[in-house]
């Protein structure tokens, strides 16, 4: 009887740990984070995959052999948002749309949650640039805090706002 109770307790504890540990890991993000640079960094192609970190007051993006740095002090706004993307994307995702009996549509229902980090910064001539990154859940807010600690400005504070693009139900159109 005791061994059975112990087994149940261990099982419940393992399940709880399994749920909590990934969230804790995602929040840490002390090292480089795997990201996709959607647009905006000078000299980097759109949708470039790489790693992002904050080093010596610089936002450091590494893509293959090339790297790109943006000074935190030149950032006039840093914003985070929660988003989601198709679990099966790319060419396979597109081809799956042609699957019979709506098979591709079923695949569209499976989505993975992601964070987006949007940075606005000025170059040496004062020109305004904007860069957008997507990254694993929980990492954008950590990077934002590091950037703010190194002198980046932000207009929004607190928890990331759910990105409009992530909503599963279409929002009503706002008009001026």
């Amino acid at each position: 009887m005791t061994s059975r109770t112990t087994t149940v307790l261990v099982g419940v504890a393992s399940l709880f740990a399994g749920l909590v540990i990934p969230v804790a890991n995602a929040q840490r993000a002390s090292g480089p984070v795997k990201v996709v640079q959607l647009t905006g960094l000078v000299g980097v192609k759109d949708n470039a995959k790489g790693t992002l970190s904050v080093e010596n007051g610089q936002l450091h993006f590494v893509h293959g052999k090339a790297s790109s740095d943006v000074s935190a002090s030149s950032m006039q706004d840093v914003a985070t948002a929660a988003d989601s993307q198709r679990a099966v994307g790319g060419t396979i995702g597109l081809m799956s749309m042609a699957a019979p009996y709506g098979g591709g549509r079923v695949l569209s229902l499976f989505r993975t949650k992601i964070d987006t980090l949007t940075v606005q910064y000025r170059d040496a001539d004062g020109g305004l640039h904007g860069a957008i990154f997507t990254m694993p859940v929980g990492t954008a807010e950590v990077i934002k805090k590091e950037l703010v600690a190194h002198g980046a400005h932000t207009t929004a504070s607190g928890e990331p706002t759910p990105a409009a693009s992530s909503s599963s139900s279409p929002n009503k159109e706002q008009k001026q």
Partner: protein
Amino acid sequence: MNRILSAGFRLSVFTLIFAASPLLAQKSKPAKIKAAALQVEMIQSDEIKLPAEFQVALYENLIRQLEENGFSRVYRDGDRNAASVADLVVLHSTVRGFKAGSERARQVTTVSGTTSITVRCQFTSPDGTSLLEQDVNGKVRFFGGNLKATYDFAKKAAHVANQNFSTPGRE
């Protein structure tokens, strides 16, 4: 015989009218405004809540599309080099309408979940005199993420600029 001649005459008159109308239309087309360079201001959305990534994507795509449409000198918001340029045209963009939509809804239903964005584009001289004002919209109906609407907008806005402004080397 007379009837055939009269019909032939009428036919030739009609042909002339139809052939001449495009030529007349081309003549009445307004002349392009001279623009040595364009400066793109950051997208404003004071009254409509627009996610930061949409704002930045609109701005970056707009600059890229203008450059790809033959505007060799496109300056960014705040660029000090633009101050000394003669015949500079400044593009102010204000978001007038925004519907976030849903990529999932688009892919599952095909008919719903459209993302749309309407932006008022105002081209002015550096002193603020309005040269052209037009609403441009961007949409994504079927394939692609919601941010693709910003690309659609940028392409259309660059087309508007292309139609109305001439730059040196691209008349």
